[in-house]
């Protein structure tokens, strides 16, 4: 009897100390359970399937894809594209963030929305627009082809352009909130101490945003390597020439070379996992210096 009373009061106390915003226990269990199940079914299972399919016929079969010349060309092209697109967007991103965060000028709000355009426009549409603008039938495309012999559409430059377009927002979006938050104070201090504009940027601005910048570069790189839609439209799928890894995966798969398809896919998935780990580490280590973190306080 005394025991029962004791338990009753203990439960009351537990209730009393409950946080006011906490839901009942059952609700919490359902919510957590649902999330985990969905994550498992829609994210973990497919990821695991990629690796299972890739290794279905053993490691030797898995490695075969890396001697396939088309696959090798695709890997090389993907790396080349990332190598061009990421630095380009690094420069664009810093310049855009600098302009938006440090200056007031007419059209500034419009520019902020414009930066998000690649997120809101379907990549396929973006690809088609480039074909219209730069295809050999268009004024600019025709001029480039005839006077310089440069093919943009259905060639590597087009693929690079598409990738730059699609990945444009990542770095700028990461830097803008942080730079707005930090304001001009540090730069003013540097300049008052005799620094040139370039020195202020190099010694003060850049170190202040370096982790956010790295974070943006990671996201940008992941997307640059994985982009399918816009690239598919602009590449023309010339084997060994304009086919990137994601496109090559699709080609392999359509030709019933499923092991090769999944092996190559596993490389992409591996890259994604590395990015994810690096991103999580950055978030954990430098949460306060990332835009995602600074938005919350």
């Amino acid at each position: 009897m005394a025991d029962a009373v004791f338990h009753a009061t203990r439960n009351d106390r537990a209730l009393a100390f409950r946080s006011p915003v906490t839901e009942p226990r059952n609700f919490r269990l359902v919510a957590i359970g649902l999330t985990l199940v969905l994550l498992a079914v829609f994210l973990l299972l497919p990821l695991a399937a990629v690796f299972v399919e890739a290794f279905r016929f053993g490691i030797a079969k898995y490695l075969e894809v890396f001697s396939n010349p088309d696959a090798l060309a695709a890997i090389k092209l993907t790396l080349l594209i990332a190598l061009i697109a990421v630095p380009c967007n690094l420069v664009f991103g810093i310049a855009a963030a600098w302009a938006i965060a440090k200056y007031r000028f007419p059209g500034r709000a419009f520019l902020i929305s414009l930066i998000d355009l690649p997120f809101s426009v379907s990549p396929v549409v973006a690809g088609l627009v480039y074909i219209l603008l730069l295809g050999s039938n268009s004024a600019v495309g025709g001029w480039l082809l005839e006077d310089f012999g440069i093919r943009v559409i259905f060639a590597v430059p087009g693929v690079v352009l598409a990738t730059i377009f699609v990945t444009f927002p990542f770095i700028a979006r990461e830097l803008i909130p942080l730079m707005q938050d930090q304001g001009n104070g540090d730069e003013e201090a540097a300049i008052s101490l005799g620094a040139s504009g370039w020195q202020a940027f190099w010694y003060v601005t850049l170190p202040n945003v370096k982790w956010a910048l790295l974070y943006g570069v990671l996201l940008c790189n992941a997307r640059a390597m994985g982009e399918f839609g816009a690239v598919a439209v602009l590449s023309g799928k010339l084997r060994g020439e304009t086919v990137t890894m994601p496109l090559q995966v699709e080609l392999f798969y359509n030709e019933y070379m499923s092991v090769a398809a999944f092996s190559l896919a596993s490389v992409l998935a591996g890259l994604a996992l590395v990015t994810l780990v690096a991103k999580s580490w950055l978030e954990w280590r430098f949460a306060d210096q990332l835009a995602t973190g600074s938005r919350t306080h």
Partner: protein
Amino acid sequence: MELGIRNVQKEFGGFTALKDVSLDIRSGELIALLGPSGSGKTTLLRLIAGLDFPTGGNVFFGDEDASLKSVGERNVGFVFQHYALFRHMTVEDNVAFGLNIRPAATRPPKHEIKRRALELLDLVQLSGLAGRYPSQLSGGQRQRVALARALAIEPRVLLLDEPFGALDAQVRRELRRWLREIHDATGHTTVFVTHDQEEALELADRVVVMSQGKIEQVGTADQVYDNPVSPFVYGFIGDSSVLPVRVEHGEVWFEDRSIGLKAHNVPSGSAKLYFRPHDIELLDGCGGCIAGTAGVSRRVAGTKRVELAIGGAGHRVEIELPVDHPAASRSRIAFRPRRWKLFQDDIEAPNEVALPQPVAA
């Protein structure tokens, strides 16, 4: 380094932040720019620094017109309100920054820079913290690093924007005394901005009182406190009470009675009587005095502030009494200001109301 500010004007868009401001600052002087927020004091400081440029007028450094020179060329030490320390650098690197970024031709050798940085940290009493990062310091310590950093470039002028604004009262008082010592030791011409009159009056050689983009008065602490030249300065510096009065034939009248103050050189007309709540004499009878009904009273340190409702309209003025004074418990109190000042009302406001015939008290 003398500073000359000549007819300086500053507009932001359609807003005029400074209206035709002129000011001369002597070499080695410690000057406070004092005013409420929006008075233009920070704008003026930034114009002197070269962080902003005037839309009209000139800023002289000695005989040289510095109006169009950049902040770097003017060689000023600027201490920011929120310190603006470089968070990714140690305290020592922060202080050495201004020397490290110099072009090779004018940059002192590495060991010399280090020596100077440590010497300055010693001056601001932070030796031993050279290896810390700004986030590991208290507010007061950060402010001192900011000052050491500004001094490192051997500036011609030291400018401080609300240097103690973000600190608590105790630290603020300490740093105030300490800034005075540093100023006296280094001899820099120093200008600081503050909205804290206590700080300005205690610290500065001369105080520049500003309001709405204009300089109201420039003077020593005694001058601006004892002899304010405008109602704004009287009201802004120290406590004050105001009573609407009338001047007639050299006598000051409140409503229907003369209050026993002579104003010989003031032309007749309506005016405002300003006095300090503590600078009064209490009277027993009222033959020429201000008398009122005691209202709310509050205790301020060793004295008591009593609010009096005066005359038919019940104008409220505050006076200060010793806590143990018998008058403090009375319901009607009569007094006369010991020191006071009259400011005539603007002539522009037409006085339509016929003055009541004065009746001798």
